[in-house]
């Protein structure tokens, strides 16, 4: 038998799993590479097996879809068509004449190298949360919305007893209801968007009955848990000495500025805050893939402009799990056809393509409605840290722009060190750009993970290869 074509999928979330199943079903050997201990990505984040969750489905939405994916994966794993490499942190994908090599670091210490060779690579690396700074945001007790959700889903720890969920975006709803279902008192859900904006966008929104039902379900859950919802409000400050004790919340005017006199203090020990998501594009940038704004650019088949490299899911634009599944499926089928040397027939994936079109339109509408208050950066006092790793204040960023001639994110970084620390700007770039009043340009992080120099110094050929052959 001729050797099977090899696909490396980076990211075992909905997009990566859907692609792996679609490609494996069509004779491609798939290596699924993911940094987490278990497959599932952000959405189907698994409770660690040792914790023995009693009813994980109570925390999970679309649990059945997940069971179907998981069942398919298990079957392919058993048959040898898919290899799953967990705890593999990919730091670079290298394109050579002979194909593509995925370079990873193993385990929690990320010190030992591993390499996976493939004929095609799918980037299904998902997204990460965007958090904007405000006075007090660095106090212990302030967590990201996704962080709170991940703690619920993955670790099953109740982050606090009295929580406020704040920011903007569809993610706040499951986080608020999830916290309440797990026993926390949710003192408020503070959403800066204006409900009127949703009414204006009803056409695209109404075209997605499942999504609206999902929203209605959350609305019912909000009611059931008696969670007070404040739209067109924002958290203007978090207060506390050693840790979070309260937040101040204010109404927003039409310009997006807090209305004087509307400020209220709400006691809480947890603030889960999020302002939407941004795609992970480091690996794509290292490969030289074209970006559209913050997203990896793909064509109708989910191909990037770099030969042999596909992308699917939130790396190509934020759009929820259903969109990631549709895109992953299309990518998997396109890859299988292309690696077999045939032109794929898009009619074969027409239902997925329709779901993709619909969901993209829906999220485009949502994105227009859910936005941080236009004037949020004005609320960031000069003394507020905007880059936590390097301890850079908003005042230092403003001086770099006003007095030293910085005009873009890169010069602000060079003049202040904002974004030079451990997170390499992943956390702080949106906040720094906002305070500086400049565009959020892609970071060009050519190393997606910190890499020991000893690993780099070892020639690729000497790095141990993962045994991923399809026996």
């Amino acid at each position, binding site marked *: 038998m001729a050797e099977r074509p090899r696909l490396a999928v980076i990211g075992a979330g909905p997009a990566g799993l859907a692609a792996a199943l679609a490609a494996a079903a069509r004779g491609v050997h798939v290596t699924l590479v993911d940094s987490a201990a278990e497959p599932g990505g952000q959405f189907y984040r698994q409770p660690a097996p040792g914790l023995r969750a009693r009813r994980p489905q109570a925390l999970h939405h679309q649990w059945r879809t997940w069971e179907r994916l998981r069942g398919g994966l298990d079957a392919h794993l058993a048959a040898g068509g898919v290899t799953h490499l967990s705890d593999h942190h990919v730091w*670079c994908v*290298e394109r050579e004449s002979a194909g593509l090599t995925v*370079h990873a670091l193993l385990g929690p210490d990320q*010190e030992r190298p591993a390499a996976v060779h493939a004929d095609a690579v799918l980037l299904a690396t998902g997204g990460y949360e965007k958090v904007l700074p405000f006075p007090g945001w660095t106090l212990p007790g302030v967590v990201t919305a996704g962080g709170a959700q991940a703690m619920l889903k993955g670790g099953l720890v109740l982050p606090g007893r009295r929580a406020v969920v704040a920011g903007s975006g569809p993610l706040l709803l499951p986080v608020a209801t999830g916290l309440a279902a797990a026993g926390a008192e949710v003192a408020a859900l503070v959403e800066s968007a204006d409900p009127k904006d949703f009414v204006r966008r009803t056409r695209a929104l109404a075209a997605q009955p499942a999504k609206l039902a999902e929203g209605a379900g959350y609305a019912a859950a909000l009611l059931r848990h008696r969670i007070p919802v404040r739209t067109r409000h924002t958290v203007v400050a978090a207060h506390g000495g050693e840790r979070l004790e309260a937040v101040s919340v204010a109404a927003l005017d039409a310009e997006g500025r807090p209305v004087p006199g509307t400020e209220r203090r709400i006691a809480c020990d947890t603030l889960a805050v999020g302002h939407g998501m941004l795609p992970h594009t480091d690996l794509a*940038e*290292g*490969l*030289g893939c074209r970006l559209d704004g913050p997203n990896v650019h793909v064509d109708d088949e989910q191909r990037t402009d770099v030969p042999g490299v596909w992308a699917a899911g939130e790396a190509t634009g934020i759009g929820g799990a259903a969109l990631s599944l549709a895109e992953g499926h299309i990518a998997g089928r396109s890859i299988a056809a292309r690696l077999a040397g045939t032109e794929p027939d898009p009619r074969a994936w027409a239902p997925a393509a329709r779901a993709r079109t619909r969901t993209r339109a829906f999220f485009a509408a949502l994105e227009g409605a859910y936005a941080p208050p236009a004037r949020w950066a004005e609320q960031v006092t000069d003394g507020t840290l905007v880059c936590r790793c390097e301890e850079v204040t908003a005042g230092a960023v403003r001086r*770099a722009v006003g*007095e*030293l*001639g*910085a*005009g*873009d994110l*890169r*010069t602000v970084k*060079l*003049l202040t*060190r904002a974004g*030079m*620390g*451990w997170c*390499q700007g992943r956390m702080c770039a949106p906040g720094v750009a906002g305070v500086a009043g400049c565009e959020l340009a892609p970071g*060009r*992080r*050519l*190393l997606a993970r*910190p*890499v*020991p*120099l*000893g690993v*780099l*110094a*070892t*020639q*690729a050929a000497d790095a141990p290869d993962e045994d991923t052959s399809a026996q």
Partner: protein
Amino acid sequence: MTNRLCDVVVVGAGMVGAACALYAARAGLDVVVVDRGPVAGGTTGAGEGNLLVSDKELGPELELALLSGRLWTDLAEELGTAIEYEPKGGVVVSATSEGLTALTELAAAQRAAGVETVSVDSDRLRDLEPYLAPGLAGGVLYPQDAQVMPTLAAAHLLRASGARLETGRTVTGVLRGPDGAVRGVTTDRGDLYAPAVVNAAGTWGGEVAGLAGVHLPVLPRRGFVLVTEPLPRRVRHKVYAADYVADVASDSAALQTSPVVEGTAAGPVLIGASRERVGFDRSFSLPVIRALAAGATRLFPFLERVRAMRTYLGFRPYMPDHLPAVGPDPRVPGLFHACGHEGAGIGLATGTGHLIAQVLGGRAPDLDLAPFRPDRFAKEAAS
């Protein structure tokens, strides 16, 4: 000129443009600096800040480096902290005794030209640099080697100059009078009138010269730098292997990577930089990064377990004979060039700015500018 805006327009707000602005302003000229991007948005923000005399062979570049070094020392008195000036010295080492012989000969010649050098025996190397690899043949200490943070230096020199700064404004043409002399520049946001224009456009200096109708062959030479996680200070000097000097002076287009390793005040160790001529190719090159890491870990084995946090690249402005273009352009009265400094534009910026200010003011320059003449390239003779 009736609507004259200022005495001189400097094109480029990189390190060289900033130094030209500072010395011209201090010579009493009214200066406007124009850049299509922000301050230090070109190569200045994409390189390192070594101010080296150690890597210069005898000749005009070494003289410019020595002049520049003295000027940096003076500037450090007013701006030292703000620009992170550190007179830390350089240590050049050699693994082999033949290499050491060549290095010692170079050092002797440099000493005769005014460079301070101290020979270091192999058993004393670790007194200077405790974490150096064992078994090196020996080295030379260059106390005059220093460093600045380039972006901070460019920004603070510009601010100290008091020059008007026009960022986000692209120069699209050079205005010339009926006599052919410069009258200013056109930009995407209106004209700027001045009797003198300084081309400090770095790697794009050839394009700006072209706007004035003259040929100046400035070409890109790509370099990558690796930056590690922050560490307690373990590398005290700038440390590099002797073959670096050969790389710098090389005419080969192929990749060269004998890295300079140095600690920074903020903690990370910088490892740089590679040299290759691949045009303006911005794509990431893993083999280049691997070669830098290999060179650095050979010098400092403890680095093997230290993590590289990021890597970045820039394009050095180089000219075919590896010397910059500094001085008036005899082909276009009123046009001055200050570009093409390749891998030494930070270090050579102060001397360049000082010399440009002298010739702008009609004074005799401290150094003979003949080797830096902008019209020295053959193509001109033909055209």
